[in-house]
């Protein structure tokens, strides 16, 4: 058991979940008191002791399936299925002849309808047995077999049949139908999970834990490239943005802890009377809390599609933190979009309005940073104050148009700070039509923000020059 557990912890560390020595010892101590047959208890015990961040749960679940899948899954109610040797992948796919797909579907349907988890597991085992067509030794992840099984089970048909069975011939209103459909979706999700677990179990039996774990490794959500994130990953990131914006807000508004105010002469003299006119205890004015004014300028052109959805989401989350946040969107010209993010407006409709109402296209809908900055300066330049921090997000790919960097220089001169967040890796900057370094010369700092982790470290490391004095 100790060997399995250390292997499991090593795997977690390899995928990037930080597990400290203390936590590993805790896990060992906790497991000692467990009845190992109870897989749920084992899973929850290890989860509670090893995982301290919700973002790591996905990695944990995958690794757990791989490392502890060989534990027997007891099937008390289905003795007829118990003769399937557990953990032994059927090396040759059994002939189709003696196998009745309808029979399997029917038993799956029954199990799904009555939420019978043992029955469902038994069905999943049979389905994988007969339909996945697993070939021993083939170095693929489970996804391939999963989709193969799902396709042959014909999930859409299964959903329809389940819908029919559960409606029991009643006439359902739209509303009830919707509820029923969601119910069915979650049941089918459970079936899918069971299938996946079963497939992983067999893969492990075939190729060993380490090999399977390696093929299943996926980047942690904070390390996923924002430019190439899938919709599911984006959704996961969006959940992580909330705390980050609060952190950024705290960073930007941070007051100096030291007495940084100027000497208050009158107060000092008055206080000195107590000590016979000797100013023992100098008094200072209270420093005024800094009220940050943040302007976000986002490139929302096509090449930035995934990233801009993310930055706009970030903007949306920020707008609940700052009262004085203004946001701008641009493609080849710039328009203010602050009002689309007002309080009580949800992100979906804000995004819709930005893409339909904001005037961000002037010529042809290809990024034009030069024109953007010039328009920005002409239109909003007067409102930039020494308190304004401007955050620009974009890849600086200017389609070989004039950079007009003087405009950015003028903007930077007026503002407290100009920060540029570029979603491209540093090595791509200044290649092709990227004009990053020309603009970078006028920015206070430029950061590569390709992943959530980088955004986080940008926020953590944020320090500002003091407000410029003229």
């Amino acid at each position, binding site marked *: 058991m100790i060997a399995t557990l250390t292997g499991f912890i090593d795997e977690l560390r390899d995928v990037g979940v930080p597990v400290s020595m203390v936590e590993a010892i805790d896990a060992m101590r906790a497991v000692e008191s467990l009845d190992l047959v109870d897989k*749920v*208890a084992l899973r*929850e015990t290890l989860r509670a002791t090893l995982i301290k961040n919700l973002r790591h749960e996905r990695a944990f679940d995958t690794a757990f399936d791989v490392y502890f899948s060989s534990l027997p899954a007891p099937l008390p109610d289905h003795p007829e299925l118990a003769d399937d040797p557990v953990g032994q992948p059927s090396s040759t796919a059994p002939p189709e002849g003696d196998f009745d797909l309808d029979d399997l579907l029917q038993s799956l349907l029954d199990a799904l309808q009555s939420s019978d988890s043992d029955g469902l597991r038994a069905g999943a085992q049979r389905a994988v047995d007969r339909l996945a067509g697993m070939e021993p030794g083939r170095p693929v992840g489970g996804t391939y077999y999963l989709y193969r099984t799902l396709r042959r089970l014909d999930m859409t048909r299964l959903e329809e049949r389940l819908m029919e069975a559960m409606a029991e011939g009643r006439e359902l209103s739209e509303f009830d139908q*919707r509820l029923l459909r969601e*119910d069915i979706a979650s049941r089918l999700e459970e079936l899918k999970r069971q299938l996946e677990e079963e497939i992983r179990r067999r893969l492990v039996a075939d190729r060993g834990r380490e090999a399977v774990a390696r093929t299943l490794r996926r980047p942690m959500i904070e390390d996923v490239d924002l430019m190439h994130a899938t919709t599911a990953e984006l959704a996961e990131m969006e959940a992580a943005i909330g705390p980050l914006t609060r952190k950024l807000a705290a960073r930007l508004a941070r007051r100096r802890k030291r007495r940084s105010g100027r000497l208050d002469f009158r107060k000092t003299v008055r206080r000195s009377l107590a000590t016979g006119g000797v100013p023992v205890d100098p008094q200072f004015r209270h420093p005024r809390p800094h009220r940050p004014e943040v302007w976000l300028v986002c490139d929302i052109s096509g090449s930035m599609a995934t990233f801009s959805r993310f930055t706009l989401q970030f903007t949306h989350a920020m707008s609940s933190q700052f009262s004085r946040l203004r946001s701008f969107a641009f493609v080849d010209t710039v328009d203010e979009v602050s009002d689309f993010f007002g309080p009580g407006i949800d*992100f979906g409709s804000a995004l819709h309005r930005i893409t339909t109402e904001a005037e961000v296209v002037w010529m042809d809908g290809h990024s034009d940073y030069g024109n953007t900055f010039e328009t920005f300066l002409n239109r909003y330049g007067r409102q930039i104050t020494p308190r304004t921090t401007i955050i620009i997000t974009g890849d600086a790919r200017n389609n070989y148009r004039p950079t007009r960097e003087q405009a950015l220089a003028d903007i930077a001169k007026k503002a407290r700070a100009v920060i540029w967040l570029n979603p491209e890796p540093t090595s791509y900057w200044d290649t092709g039509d990227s004009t990053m370094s020309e603009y970078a010369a006028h920015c206070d700092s430029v950061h590569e923000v390709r992943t959530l982790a980088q955004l986080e470290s940008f926020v953590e490391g944020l320090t500002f020059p003091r407000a410029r004095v003229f």
Partner: protein
Amino acid sequence: MELDSSQSVADALRTVGYLPDARIAQVVYLAAHLGKPILVEGPAGVGKTELAKALAAVTGRELVRLQCYEGLDEAKALYEWNYKKQLLRIQADEDHEWSEIEQDIFSEEFLLERPLLRAIRSEKPAILLIDEVDRVEVETEALLLEVLSDFQVSIPELGTIAASSIPMVLLTSNNTRELSEALKRRCLFLHIDYPDPEREQEILEARVPGLSAHLAEQIARVARSVRNLDLKKSPSVSETIDWARTLLALAVDQVDEDVLADTLHVLLKYQTDIETAAKELTAPAR
């Protein structure tokens, strides 16, 4: 009541009307077994604080609660010297030697206990609830570390006060910021999410007397459906309970579009959310 297996934890919690799932029961059992604090995280209104209260009710222990907020300091969390009493003491015997008085005024008699100290000095083991720990600054978090790992408090004038009983500690967090690694390392982590419909139905039936099983099931399913929408604030468990009470008071026995449209404001608290939900759920599908 003995908490000697996850099953007995679950049974015990059920007797006071808290319905734990397998995860909650297992982690609570572990915490009792290993003597470690639990860090409970999850969206607002899923019963994080309620868990501590239920545990106190089950074990018959005293619930000591420390509500965290920005600006919480030692004097409010750990202990404070009762300086008024100290002054009186000094004035009361002016003819004594200073060294005698000094010995005297920094004794336990002049110590004001705050929640953390009270929890570990309690004769019978207490339940210590540190609520919304994510609200305190990172610096203040450090105050908790000594208490959480060694169950002791160091007071410079008095020395180290060790716990007379090991309290069961629950920390709750709404995850508004990342807690420090040092704090997390000392805790067991428990994430509570919205319950699945089956469990929510049970919760409703336990909490709302007179609610029919059929209606409870419908409410739980609608709640899941609403939580699937993209809302500013998803309905919490306490809000679905309120909604169930409302429906009961209105003598509704079947949730349909009209009922939902009329009572949605009990479930959701933002006008935009109400509009979204009404549009999504009650309008016929296109």
